[in-house]
């Protein structure tokens, strides 16, 4: 079941999907802007270019500065181990692994923010403060959603959430799971600093949130962070696809094709959202996130009554 070729192929697929997704978002945005847009593999060319560059280090940095980019590469891979993809079961699965899944990203955030603070740049301190504020508002939403899934499918593993019971659970709790899908989409947009909450393409340090934290990373370190960001996006996209596409055909090939189409579809949806929406005010982001939290709490009320 867990032969090594299988695992390597899945991880390669994951890597390719991550790079493709970023390109697709750019393409969709270019389409809405009436432009031709960069090629879909532009992200890969960027990464290759960055890897060939040298690293510039500030004199104040220590080893923590390297820990952020390193974990940015490792954590999404490790988190992907816990998620079922199509009809492929997760590589690791145990009772309560969804807690680890949430806090893996917590660990990543801790080291990203630490490595940002390590440069002792005031811009990066500001970006860190904002990033932590948002993540503190996001964490309860993610938790409430996972509790809803745990209650709906009466299991405690991520494989149990998205495995065999999910179809029955959808029939019983379609409304509530609809809420969870919306909450997951909000979480995806905030965690990956996409447009209504943060603009990945902004050029002013004062308006940056996530990008302000990685200003001092250069060359291969920046490449690690960019690739890690793309993989993090794909992990959350897989989370949504697992929930939204509960049915399985039973044939591995078709299931995988459907799941790939789903993940790329999330990229298209995010591209559309980015094209039609302007960035929210910093103050109203707080409002929107608290509103989402309240909505997810309704889900808990509905499922426990």
């Amino acid at each position, binding site marked *: 079941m867990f032969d090594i070729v299988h695992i390597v192929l899945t991880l390669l697929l994951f890597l390719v999907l991550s790079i493709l997704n970023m390109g697709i978002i750019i393409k969709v945005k270019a389409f809405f802007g009436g432009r031709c847009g960069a090629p879909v593999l532009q992200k890969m060319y960027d990464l290759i270019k960055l890897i060939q560059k040298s690293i510039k280090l500030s004199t104040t940095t220590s080893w923590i500065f390297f820990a952020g980019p390193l974990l940015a590469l490792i954590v999404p891979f490790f988190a992907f181990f816990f998620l079922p993809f199509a009809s492929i079961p997760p590589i690791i699965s145990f009772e309560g692994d969804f807690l680890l899944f949430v806090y893996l990203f917590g660990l990543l955030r801790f080291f990203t923010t630490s490595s940002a603070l390590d440069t002792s740049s005031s811009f990066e301190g500001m970006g860190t403060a904002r990033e932590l504020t948002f993540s503190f508002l996001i964490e309860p939403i993610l938790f409430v959603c996972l509790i809803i899934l745990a209650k709906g499918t009466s299991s405690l593993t991520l494989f149990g959430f998205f495995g065999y019971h999910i179809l029955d659970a959808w029939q019983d709790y*379609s409304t509530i799971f609809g809420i969870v899908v919306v909450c997951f989409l909000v979480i995806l947009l905030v965690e990956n600093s996409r447009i209504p909450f943060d603009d990945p393409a902004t050029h002013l340090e004062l308006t940056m949130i996530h990008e302000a934290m990685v200003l001092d990373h250069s060359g291969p370190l920046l490449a690690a962070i960019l690739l890690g960001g793309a993989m993090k996006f794909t992990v959350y996209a897989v989370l949504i696809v697992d929930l939204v596409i509960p049915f399985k055909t039973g044939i591995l090939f078709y299931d995988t094709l459907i799941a790939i189409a789903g993940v790329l579809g999330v990229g298209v949806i995010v591209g559309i959202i980015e094209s039609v929406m302007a960035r929210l005010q910093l103050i109203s982001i707080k*409002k929107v996130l608290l509103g989402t939290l309240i909505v997810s709490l*309704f889900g808990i*009320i509905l499922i426990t009554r």
Partner: protein
Amino acid sequence: MNASTINTILLLVVLINMFIMGSNRIITAIKAVALQGIILALLAFFSEEFTTKGTILFIIIVSIKGFIIPLLLIHATKFANINQEMKPLIGYMPTMFIDALSVFLSFFISQKLPLLPSHQETIIVPVFFATLMSGMILIIARQKAITQVIGYLMMENGVYILSSMLTGSVTFLAEIGVLLDVLAGVFIMGIMLNHISTTFEKGDVGKLTSLRE
């Protein structure tokens, strides 16, 4: 219509309540209340068999709640030169939180009520309580006279949920009567708003305490 669909639509009603609590423009709130009224009328219409009486009631409700009352109110705000800002006594975020608490409270209360089993699987009763309380919270937490009208309309929507969904179409006469009352109330309130604004320049109910003969 099965219970799940009804619950989805009623959840939308609660979300509109929440949206009104958080919105800071008066016309947005008026439009949201109108939308809420239309959604509820549609829900009641499609959850029963098609009858002439039901259709007439549906058309009357949609035209009054969805179009006549909002247009009257929007006209009144423009005519009386009321500023678009809501002027909250309690801020927007605290109001949203209080509203969320009231939703939890209403779910708690309705679990204690001895309801029929068929009514227990839908969330009609809790949403009724929640909408009623949201209307009251809006009346308490906002300063202007026109927001009190909006709160009153929300409470009417709440009463409509209970009357139409739980008892069926026997409430034809009662609902028409209530609608007439609401329409008259909004009408009078529109005239009052004008008088308040000409006397005090702003529709601020805090100033009404100093009224004399």
